């Protein structure tokens, strides 16, 4: 079988099928990595202050860790959830090593992220969503940066990565109830910080 048709075949497979094939063929793992590379890179950038290079190096480490542990993939979870869990743990361990855990301020990313954060911001601040997205992108991101990592994590996972409570629970390995509590607290903290930064009045 030539390389191209095999890739096409792999491209049509589900994540879980690719996991099985990855055990025998690294190329299947390549397809898996390709699927998640942009999303994971964005996730790392959102929760960690790192240059693009640093984020990419970290992503490499994450993928190698995933490959090493692929036999330990919990079939009760979605592959993406398991992948995010490893990424989350790696970012935390990186943070513990370097005490650096703030997202970089790329204006384009910030505006994009704000668009996603609008879901709860419009409710919280009663603001026009378009205004928030266009004008407040950077400011919103700055406030997000000021939050403690545990609060920023859940906000990012819920509103930027758009994951369900159950998925977040599986990623940060806490009960769903605790995720809900954490999320509520994160929103309150965000609101207080936003007031401090006079986000509402702008």
């Amino acid at each position: 079988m030539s390389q191209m048709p095999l890739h096409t075949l792999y491209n049509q497979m589900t994540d879980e099928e690719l996991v099985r094939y990855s055990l025998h063929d690294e190329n299947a793992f390549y397809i898996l990595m390709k699927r998640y590379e942009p999303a994971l890179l964005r996730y790392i950038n959102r929760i960690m202050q790192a240059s693009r290079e640093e984020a990419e190096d970290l992503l490499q480490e994450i993928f190698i860790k995933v490959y090493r542990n692929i036999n330990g993939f919990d079939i009760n979870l979605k592959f993406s959830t398991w992948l995010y869990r490893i990424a989350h743990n790696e970012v935390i361990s990186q943070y513990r090593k370097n005490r650096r855990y703030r997202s970089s301020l790329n204006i384009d990313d910030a505006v994009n992220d704000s668009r996603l954060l609008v879901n709860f911001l419009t409710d919280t601040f009663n603001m026009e969503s378009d205004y928030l997205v266009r004008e407040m992108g950077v400011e919103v991101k700055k406030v997000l940066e000021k939050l403690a990592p545990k609060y920023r994590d859940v906000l990012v996972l819920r509103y930027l990565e758009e994951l369900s409570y159950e998925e977040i629970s599986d990623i940060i390995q806490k009960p769903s109830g605790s995720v809900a509590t954490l999320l509520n607290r994160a929103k309150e903290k965000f609101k207080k910080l936003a007031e401090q930064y006079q986000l509402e009045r702008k």
Partner: protein
Amino acid sequence: MRDISREVLDKIKEEGIVPRPKRYFILRRSTVWILFCFSIILGSIACSTVIFRVKNAEWDLFHHFKGNLLEFLLIYTPYFWGIFMIFFSFIAYYYFRQTQGGYRFRAITIIILSLLISVAGGMGTYSAGITERMETVFEEKLPFYHGVSFHSRMVWMSPDKGLLAGRISDITKSGSFLLNDLDGNEWHINAEGAVWRGRLTPSTGLEIKLIGTRIGPNSFRADEVRPWHGRKNRGAKDRHN
């Protein structure tokens, strides 16, 4: 722009990185479950010891403490084993959290469940008589293990409260003997009319507990004599005059 996935794939091939074998994960998961079960078993043993200590405490001695319930409870409450039981419940919680789906449960739920399992296990262990045998073996084989005797020592070395314990060193005459207490001091014991419990026969070297009254600096009148080991009501009552 970097193709990270390609770089990783090249690295995997160049460095010959291979996935960890399945047995590694099976072993790791099994170890966690074994450690969890082990913690529960230790918690059960601690609980059964609590039950044993409470059941075998000499509650009838309370009146010798002149109503000082706190002092009495401090001596007889097996708080050390209670703390042990709680400690192992936390250890069990820790290992349960390490299991695949353990994080889905609230900490309080896991801890309470671990405690309940330990209590159930402890009751079973106690009912099967395992705890009593364990206590006996520990006291005999482990020199550092004082077991029940630690509490007993605190209680029974209170001659002013009418409680004394030691080993008979000499039978002086019928109903009287010399006793070396647990600290090695010699006492003249007048045991005329005393109730001897547990089918005891006065003899040199016998370890006993006395309930009575201090009648001098080194003299004690015994009203009741109990064996140092075992329970006071085991066996028939004998009266030695």
